[in-house]
């Protein structure tokens, strides 16, 4: 077969390539990032019925929805952060669509995150991954698996008097990934940074360094335990919002059958 | 200035259209029936009638003006007397002066009201502005509750018992048994009165009138006119009328008669001892008792002793409400303000039939009406004389 997509089609039909949904349901009660109250806040997902086969619209049902660009499973564009404000084509509507489909590697931090809410992704962990799976190829998405997506309710933000506690990368880890020239970085937590990421230098290193370098972010991902460490393909196209800094989106992965890691093995 | 007498003016052709408890018919229908009857008695055609006085609560949206077209009348004198229980005497006062002055030759005075299911409740809720604002919202007992309060204070003040009120009710029922149009046709004992179910304490069932539909009427004309038509008639010796008397009284223990009674007797040239029979406005026995006092038949506070000493039946020594009054004949709205007057005309003209009081020549009729808020505001009275049988 000369058309490679024909091969993909038959692989999908034959079940040798599976589609894994990495997206949380958009739900009004799904947590969003919480900032100190004097700051503007991230709007929660909201849905109001416009009609439901009734006097407001006899044959149809539909809703008005509203949310922030960074509500639910979402994509961060470079202009989201001050460091990326001048990045060329840094808004979601300007990004080359080829970015939205590409290879993905998964670094499994779930064991450490299970025992330490403030678990850090460090260069050493990246080195160890590379020792096992080879160097992270350039222009790959890198996802940090923590199984955090399995948490519910207050456990998810894990807010305490000194702020939220959730795993994330150290500044050095992000610098290491930038040296690999990755396409973007994604997490299962509410942000690409650790809950306590404000205390790093620079604060929020994933946001600051990645977006400053024109890279992308994905957060609130789920089902990362169903992805192989490498060899999967990520499909993550944000909505084409004019000047948008990010967007809720449906994130899918194409996975060779039987290659998932973690619990599904 | 001395008031003019009513010489030369008479009352005649008294008619009562038999009452019914509930009726689909309108006030127009009831008034038409009374008018037709009274004109027929005098052999007058509707076209000949040049004066018309109407009392009714249930004509809405019409007024007596609308009635003239409805009934095909062309009067040159028209009156509307919205005074409830005082309407009869007030209507005759107005009509008598009109006839006396020549403004009208014959005035038909008619009162009639409809009574449909629920129309009583609707009437109560919008009876007056003060009632709507300040009495009906407090339990919606209607006049029963308002007069129960008056009775409560009256009993306390003068040491009156329910038995005393019962004597009035029982005597009237005895009279009603001789009046074929009475709604109540069974005898009433004092025991039954006392043990009746409570309506608004201290009132029980037999303190209260039964709302019904009906009409009453009579004609006012010159005496020579009545004579030429061969009609029996009554003369008017004296009348009084008063509204909102004693506003400073915290509660109504006396009516407006107390202001004007001396003038009534003076004009009539007689005293209470000359009265052969009395027709009071009996929306409740307590109000009749109040009239015995205020009309001079006994001193204030002596009403209870008076009823214990006197026999109020047709054959008694103080014939009172000889057709049974509203308590036994029924209350047909504004016609209740005519009931005693029409009966009095029959009595002094010897036409009362089964209720006829022997040798009745002088009758007193009193009216009382319109509980606007906490008390009846209108009072009226008249002394009529006739040639008897």
């Amino acid at each position, binding site marked *: 077969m000369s058309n490679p997509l024909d091969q993909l089609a038959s692989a999908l039909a034959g079940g040798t390539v599976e589609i894994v949904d990495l997206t949380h349901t958009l739900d009004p009660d799904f947590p969003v990032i919480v900032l100190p109250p004097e700051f503007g806040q991230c709007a929660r997902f909201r849905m109001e019925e416009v009609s439901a086969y009734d006097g407001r619209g006899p044959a149809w049902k539909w809703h008005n929805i509203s949310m922030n660009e960074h509500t639910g499973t979402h994509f961060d564009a470079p202009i989201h952060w001050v460091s990326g404000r001048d990045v060329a084509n840094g808004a979601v509507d300007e990004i080359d669509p080829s970015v939205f489909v590409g290879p993905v590697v998964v670094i499994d931090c779930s064991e450490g995150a299970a025992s330490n809410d403030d678990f850090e992704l460090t260069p050493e962990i990246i080195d160890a991954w590379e020792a096992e799976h080879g160097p992270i190829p350039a222009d790959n998405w890198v996802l940090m698996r923590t199984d955090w997506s399995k948490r519910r309710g207050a456990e998810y933000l894990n807010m305490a008097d000194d702020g939220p506690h959730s795993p994330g990368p150290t500044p050095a880890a992000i610098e290491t990934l930038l040296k690999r020239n990755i396409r973007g970085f994604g997490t299962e937590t509410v942000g690409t940074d650790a809950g306590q990421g404000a205390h790093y230098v620079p604060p929020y290193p994933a946001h600051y360094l990645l977006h400053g370098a024109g890279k992308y972010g994905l957060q609130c991902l789920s089902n990362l335990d169903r992805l192989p460490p490498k060899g999967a393909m990520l499909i993550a196209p944000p909505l084409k919002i004019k000047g948008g800094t990010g967007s809720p989106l449906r994130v899918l992965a194409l996975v060779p059958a039987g290659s998932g890691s973690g619990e599904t093995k | 200035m001395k008031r003019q007498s009513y010489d030369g003016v008479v009352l005649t052709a008294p008619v009562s259209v038999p009452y019914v408890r509930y009726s689909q018919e309108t006030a127009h229908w009831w008034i038409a029936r009374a008018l037709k009857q009274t004109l027929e008695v005098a052999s007058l055609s509707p076209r000949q009638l040049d004066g018309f006085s109407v009392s009714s609560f249930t004509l809405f949206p019409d007024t007596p003006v609308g009635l003239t077209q409805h009934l095909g009348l062309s009067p040159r004198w028209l009156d509307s007397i919205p005074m409830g229980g005082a309407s009869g005497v007030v209507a005759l006062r107005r009509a008598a002066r009109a006839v006396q002055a020549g403004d009208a030759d014959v005035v038909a005075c008619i009162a009639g009201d409809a009574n449909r299911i629920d129309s009583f409740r609707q009437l109560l809720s919008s009876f007056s502005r003060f009632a709507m604002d300040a009495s009906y919202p407090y339990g*919606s007992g209607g006049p029963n509750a308002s007069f129960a309060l008056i009775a409560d204070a009256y009993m306390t003040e003068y040491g009156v018992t329910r038995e005393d009120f019962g004597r009035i009710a029982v005597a009237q029922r005895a009279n009603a048994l001789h009046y074929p149009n009475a709604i109540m046709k069974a005898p009433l004992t004092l025991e039954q009165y006392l043990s009746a179910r409570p*309506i608004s304490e201290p009132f029980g069932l037999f303190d209260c009138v039964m709302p019904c539909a009906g009409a009453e009427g009579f004609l006012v004309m010159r005496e020579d006119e009545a004579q030429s038509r061969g009609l029996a008639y009554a003369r008017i010796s004296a009348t009084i009328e008063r509204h909102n008397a004693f506003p400073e009284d915290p*509660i109504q223990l006396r009516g407006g008669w107390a202001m004007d009674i001396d003038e009534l007797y003076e004009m009539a040239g007689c005293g209470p001892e000359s009265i052969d029979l009395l027709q009071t406005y009996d929306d409740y026995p307590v109000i009749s008792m109040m009239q015995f006092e205020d009309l001079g038949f006994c001193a204030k506070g002596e009403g209870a002793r008076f009823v214990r000493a006197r026999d109020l039946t047709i054959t008694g020594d103080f014939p009172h409400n000889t057709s049974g009054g509203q308590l036994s004949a029924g209350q047909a709205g504004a016609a209740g303000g005519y009931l005693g007057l029409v009966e009095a005309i029959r009595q002094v003209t010897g036409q009362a039939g089964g209720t006829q009081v022997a040798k009745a020549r002088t009758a007193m009729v009193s009216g009382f009406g319109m509980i606007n808020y906490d008390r009846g505001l209108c009072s009226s009275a008249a002394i009529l004389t006739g040639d008897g049988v």
Partner: protein
Amino acid sequence: MTDKLLPPKKKNPQLRQMVPTLPPQMRSRAALGLTAAAARGAFSLQHCQECGAVQYPPRDACCACLSVDLAWRKTPREGTVIAETRINVSPDPYYRERLPWRSGLVRLSAGPTVLCHLHGDVGRGDIVLMDLKLDKAGQGVMIALPQERSPDMADDPQLRELTAHPKHRRVLITDIRSPATRPLIEALLKAGASQIFVGESESWRRGSDHAAIAGLDKVSVMPLDVSDPSSVKRLAAEIGGKTDILINTARHVRPGGVLGSDTVFAREEFEINALGLMRLAQAFGPGMASRTADGVNSAVAFVNLLSVHALSADPQYGAFSASQAAALSISQTLRAEFRASGLRMINVFAGPTDDEWHQPLPPPKVAPKALAMSIVEALCEGLEDVYCGDVAKDLEERWRRDPKVLERELAGGA
């Protein structure tokens, strides 16, 4: 002495729930002065400005001197019962269901004779204190109360018809995070509330008093976010049928004027303060309105907390004031819509509350406990508009006197 009101028995599910009926509600325009006074707990009658005669029933001209200059003035409450009756028969559907009903005539020390409802503890000859209260039709009516308060006097069935007393009733407080919620729970339980539901939004945020409140006897914490239609509907589906009193403590307040701010905070304020009220009313209102004749624990009141700046804007809190004006307007519409059911819409107006969002403001500020006491008093007395604290009372007074002058004063520099 009034008999103690017993808790309601479990309902017989085979009996039809009573359909709400109302006492007579037609009034003249003048008589609405009684309603206006009763709504805020005042005892006012018309006083002739020329001769001083006190008038009753309300009228359009003085019955002593014919002056038309009649003004509503605070009036001494004392009077003597001069007659009483127990009504056993009434053609009115509302009273038919509540017979016997006692009423009486009271001679006021101020002059007029007043036909009024009688509290069970008073009768002919007694010296009484008169009160003006709103009845189920939302109209001002007179009731004669005993001079001496007794422990269970609020349980009198005729008085209870005129109040929204929490005793034996189940209350929903919509926001666990409001500083007023904790003292409100305590005050309601003290007043005899049988159960209290407390709404909690975004339980994933923590930071609420959740554990302490959820642990209280007779208190349940339930998920509720007034900015989320589905959340409001979900809770109404669960407890709407047993919510007798709803107290909306949810509010969002941020300082700032209109210029120099974007509309993000304003939107959040409107979402919670105005539209949240609408959502609560839409989800809980119809069910409550259908249960206003449901016995001892009938649905009785919907309480909304407002800033007194709903009346006139505080430019330091521009968008917030606007959201409060909107909420006031919504509450007025709800009042009209609840009218047919007898469900009472109570607005409790407060000045700046003693919380983080009014921290830099000078005192006096309304303590959460004072706010809670005002709310429970409004329920116990059956008020419709309550001004809690000195600032709110002062501002209301100034607003009544001249709204334009107040507006200029609030604009500063005056």
